[in-house]
């Protein structure tokens, strides 16, 4: 997530101090990106992947994390250079028809994601305070509205991003478990299997890392914070280091789960199970750190995905948008955000297990991925539009390679969902 302002201080009697501040801002942005990287989809799919296949799917996690880094960097660069966020680019580049299709697909996925994240907040609060789930869905949403109303955009990101860092307890738990590191390393080597369940989880962990709302939010956030060409270095560091180091959390979740759950035959179908390895390693303290980190991660993702849904709609319809404008100057944007949140509450309150909602939202999102990432790739590589900031050779090759992978997975996602009964075997 971009996390610092693009406004620069002019002139400079104190150039050293200004440079120090800039470095600090970049570092804080990266830390926020690390903490805000995981959402309920990552928590669920990585833990299940570890339990079912031990370390065999680590390569797919790394592939997904690297992919989101590549595309987030591109979308942030396009936003900083052109002042256009991803959805604006989709409509401009692909036309109204395809833009509308992308809007409908991404909105459906975003609503499911909002519902799943709100359900995730309620589950974690229920585990901490043992009060009814339905009460926590509602009160969790109210708390989100209050946080969004009270904090500036950068403050919202930092609040959830820094809180999410509590999940580094997973890394500590892995070190404490001391698994066979050779086995872990072997899991980083790509391997395929004829098992449909294995292939379903390849799609799941990859898609969970590349959820479309992440780039929608990232690029719109860049504009919220007034990024310009001067922020390109910051963008690159945020996207590559932030997501990259954040990916370590995903890898740690797979390893922690694979180490503890795989030999016992545990099937983690509940969000609460994600915290068990940390309880095993550090007792109640580990459990509380894990639950706290999960709460910040799913809370941050609820904000990101609901904002992404409103950004997309407002950008497609040409409304005034942006948290920085305040509700008075962007009333339709603000109203649509509240509506998306209400729809999310209604779905989460319907009694459907949030983990099931998550699985469907992640797998359906794969189908929407090409519509999100192709326009980004095309515009970021367009020299007539991006001039000297267009994709270089490495970004072009990586972008197209990832796009091929995305298309293959998009074609395979629904058949695999049906063949495996949504991972139920």
């Amino acid at each position, binding site marked *: 997530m971009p996390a610092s302002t693009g406004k620069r201080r002019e002139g400079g009697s104190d150039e050293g101090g200004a440079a120090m501040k800039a470095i600090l801002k970049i570092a804080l942005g990266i830390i926020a990106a690390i903490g805000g990287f995981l959402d309920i989809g990552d928590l669920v799919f990585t833990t299940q992947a570890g339990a079912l296949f031990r370390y065999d799917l680590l390569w797919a996690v790394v592939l997904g994390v690297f992919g989101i880094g590549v595309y987030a960097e591109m979308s942030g660069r396009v936003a900083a250079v052109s002042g256009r966020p991803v959805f604006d680019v989709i409509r401009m580049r692909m036309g109204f028809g395809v833009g509308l299709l992308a809007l409908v697909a991404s909105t459906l996925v975003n609503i499911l994601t909002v519902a799943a994240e709100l359900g995730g907040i309620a589950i974690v609060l*229920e*585990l*901490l*305070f*043992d009060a009814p789930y339905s009460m926590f869905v509602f009160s969790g949403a109210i708390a989100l509205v209050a946080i969004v109303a009270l904090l500036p955009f950068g403050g919202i990101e930092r609040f959830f991003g820094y809180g999410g860092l509590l999940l580094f307890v997973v890394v500590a738990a892995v070190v404490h478990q001391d698994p066979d590191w050779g086995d872990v390393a072997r899991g980083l080597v790509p391997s395929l299997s004829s098992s449909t369940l294995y292939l379903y989880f390849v799609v799941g962990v990859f898609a969970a890392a590349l959820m479309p709302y992440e780039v929608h939010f990232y690029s719109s956030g860049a504009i919220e914070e007034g990024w310009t060409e001067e922020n390109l270095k910051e963008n690159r560091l945020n996207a590559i280091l932030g997501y990259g180091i954040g990916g370590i959390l995903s890898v740690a979740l797979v390893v922690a789960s694979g180490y*503890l759950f795989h030999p*016992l*035959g*545990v*099937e*983690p*179908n*509940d969000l*609460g*199970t994600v*915290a*068990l390895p940390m*309880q*095993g390693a550090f*007792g*109640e303290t580990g*459990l*509380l750190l894990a*639950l706290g980190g999960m709460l910040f991660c799913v809370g941050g993702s609820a904000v990101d995905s609901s904002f992404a849904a409103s950004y997309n709609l407002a950008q497609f319809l040409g409304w005034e948008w942006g948290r920085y404008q305040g509700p008075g100057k962007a009333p339709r944007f603000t109203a649509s955000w509240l509506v998306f949140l209400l729809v999310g509450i209604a779905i989460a309150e319907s009694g459907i297990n949030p983990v099931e909602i998550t699985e469907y939202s992640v797998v359906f999102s794969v189908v929407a991925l090409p519509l999100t990432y192709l326009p980004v790739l095309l515009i970021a590589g367009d020299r007539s539009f991006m001039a000297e900031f267009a994709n270089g050779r490495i970004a072009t090759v990586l972008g197209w390679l990832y796009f091929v992978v995305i298309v293959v997975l998009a074609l395979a996602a629904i058949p695999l969902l049906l063949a495996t009964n949504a991972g139920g*075997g």
Partner: protein
Amino acid sequence: MSGNADSRIRASAAVLLFAFLLAASGCGDLGKAELTRGVESLSALAAQGQLVASGVARDATKSTYARVMSKTLGEEAEHEAEKLADATPQAGTEEERDAAVAIAGEISQLLSELQTYPGDENHGSLVQGHLEEAQEKAEALSARLNGEKA
């Protein structure tokens, strides 16, 4: 549209509706593979329950967490028991189906006990041991269904 076509559509719709209701009610035939899958799920639930109980036994958990997790896992075991009990087992697997229902009931009861005493280390330790036994029974049953020697 002709009357014939109309009646064919109505018949197809009725068959589909019946199939849907049958599937939704869980009252269909219970094949050996599905029974085995159900028993494996019970084993997984027992294993997960042991981890929760172990936290209680070691005083290394938060009681709200242990209570909610026990409740959730217990409900899953109960649901599995109902699903298995309602279905008609494939000929020759009636005994295994009944054994699976009994194991599911046992797991559900143990988790209910943990839900009641999430802060009691002695109960935690006892439940952990009994869940381990329940898991062993489930694994033996699964092996029998797979034609392996238990």
